[in-house]
C-alpha cells in the first residue's frame, strides 16, 4: 500500500514498516536537489513534523514525516548523491524506513488517485 501526504511525501507500507520519500511532483517543483539531510537509525520521527531537510539550488525545504515511528533504515545514497532524488524520487530516491508506531495514521493520508487530484488543483 502506498499513500501520500499533502506535504508531498509518500509512504509505502510493508510488514508494519513505512518506506518514505518525496513525490515526483515535489522533486519537479524543487528542481535540482543538491543537499539532503536525514535522521539517524534509532531516531524517532513524528507525523507532520520535520525529519530532515532537502535543498535545491534555489531553496531549502523541510521533509515532513507522513507517519510516526522509529527510523530503522536510512538511504545514505541520496545523502551522497542528492540528484538521485530527481532521477528516481519514488524508487531509488527513498529516504528513510520507519517502524510505524500507529498504523491508523495512514487513514489520514491520500490514495494515489486523491493525491493526483490534489496536485492538479495547485
Amino acid at each position, binding site marked *: 500500500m502506498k499513500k501520500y501526504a499533502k506535504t508531498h511525501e509518500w509512504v509505502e507500507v510493508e510488514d508494519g514498516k513505512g518506506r518514505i520519500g518525496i513525490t515526483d511532483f515535489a522533486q519537479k517543483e524543487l528542481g535540482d536537489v*543538491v543537499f539532503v539531510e536525514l535522521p539517524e537509525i534509532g531516531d524517532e520521527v513524528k507525523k507532520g513534523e520535520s525529519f530532515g531537510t532537502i535543498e535545491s*539550488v534555489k531553496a531549502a525545504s523541510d521533509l515532513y514525516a507522513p507517519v510516526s515511528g522509529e527510523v530503522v533504515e536510512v538511504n545514505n545514497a541520496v545523502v551522497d548523491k542528492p*540528484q538521485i532524488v530527481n532521477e528516481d524520487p519514488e524508487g531509488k530516491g527513498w529516504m528513510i524506513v520507519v517502524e510505524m508506531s500507529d498504523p491508523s495514521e495512514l487513514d489520514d493520508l491520500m490514495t494515489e488517485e486523491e493525491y493526483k487530484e490534489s496536485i492538479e488543483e495547485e
Partner: protein
Amino acid sequence: MLKETPLIEVHKRYGGKIVDFAGWAMPIQYSSIIEEHMAVRERVGLFDVSHMGEIDVTGRDAAKLVNMLITNDISKMKVKQAKYSPMCYENGGIVDDLLVYKLADDHYLLVVNAGNTDKDYNWILDRAKGMDVTVKNESPNYIQLAIQGPKSEELLSKLMDVDLSAIKYYHFDLGKLSGDGVFAEGIISRTGYTGSDGFEFYTKEVDKAEAVWDLIMSAGKEYGIEPCALGARDTLRLEAGMLLYGHDIDENHTPVQADILWTVKLNKDNFIGKDALKKEVENGPAIKLYGMEMLDKGVPRQHYEIYKDGEKVGDITSGTFAPYLKKYIAMGYIKSGVVDLGDEVQIKIRNKFLKARIVEKPFYKRR
C-alpha cells in the same frame, strides 16, 4: 502587475517556470538549473535579459556626466569599448553597478540592473541638471539577449555580418544578425555575467524578439544550445565571483568593501563618492567581501552568519551549490583583519556550525 519582456510567450513555449524577479515575470529555469549551467560552461546557452535597463546619454557633456557618475574612468575609452563600474552615492554606498558602452565621443549607453532602472534614471537625471546632455530611459525599446559559452562565437559567426573573432573582451561592434528570412541590427559585445566566453546582443527591433530567439536556437542546435534562465544566471555569476546588486552590494556597501577596488579610480577628477571612498581606502574598510568554500556539507545562503573562534564575524550575501565546480560556495562580508586566505571559519546553517574555508575569488576562472 508584473512587467514582461517581449519574449514572455517564448519562455512559456520552452517550458520556463515563471517567477517574479524585481517586478518582472521572468523564467527561473527551463530544464534544470544545473543542466543550463553546464551548457554554458561546456557549450552554449541563450538567455533573455531584456529586463535589464538601458539608459542613453548623449550630448556635448555626455562623457563629463558619465565620468562624474561612476567610479571607474571612461576618459581613455575608445568608441566600441565597454566598461564595468559601480555608480556611488556621496557616502560611497552603491546606487547600482553597470556597463558603459561608448557609442561615440558624445554618446554612451548605460546598462543597469532591472530592479534599479527607475532609481538610476532619476538619479542620473538629477545629476545632469545644467549640463548639455540628453538622458533617456530606453529600456522598453531594447531587447537584450546573452549568448554565453565556449561555442557562442562559432554559433553567432554563422548569423552575424561582423567579424566576431576581432571583438575583444569588453569591446563591441554594430552589426546585423540574419538567417531564415529574419534580420535585426544592433550592438554585439563580448561581455556577459557568467564567467564563460560569450556575447550580448542589444537590438531595438523589439517586434522581432521571438524571431531572433528562434533563429539563434535553431542555428545553435548543432552546438547543443540550451535556453537558460535566471537560476543558472545566478549560479554562473556566483561561480565566477561576480557581484549581484541587492545581495553582495547595495547602498549600504561600498566598492572598497566589495573588494572591487580595481573599478575605483581615485586619481581621476571629481566623481560622486570620491572623498568617502578615498578616506575608506586610506583608513582601510571595516568589512570586506570574501569568498568561501564549504568543508562540511551544507548549502550556505544569504543572511547566514559567519563565525570565527566562536565569535560572529560576518554574514553571507550569496551562496549556492556550484554546479561546475561541484562545491558549495559563498560570498560574504567579514570584519577586516579577522581572516586570511586559507583560514577556516564556521557558517551557521540551521543552528549547526559548519566548517568553511576562505578562498580566492573568482571560484571559477576560464582558461
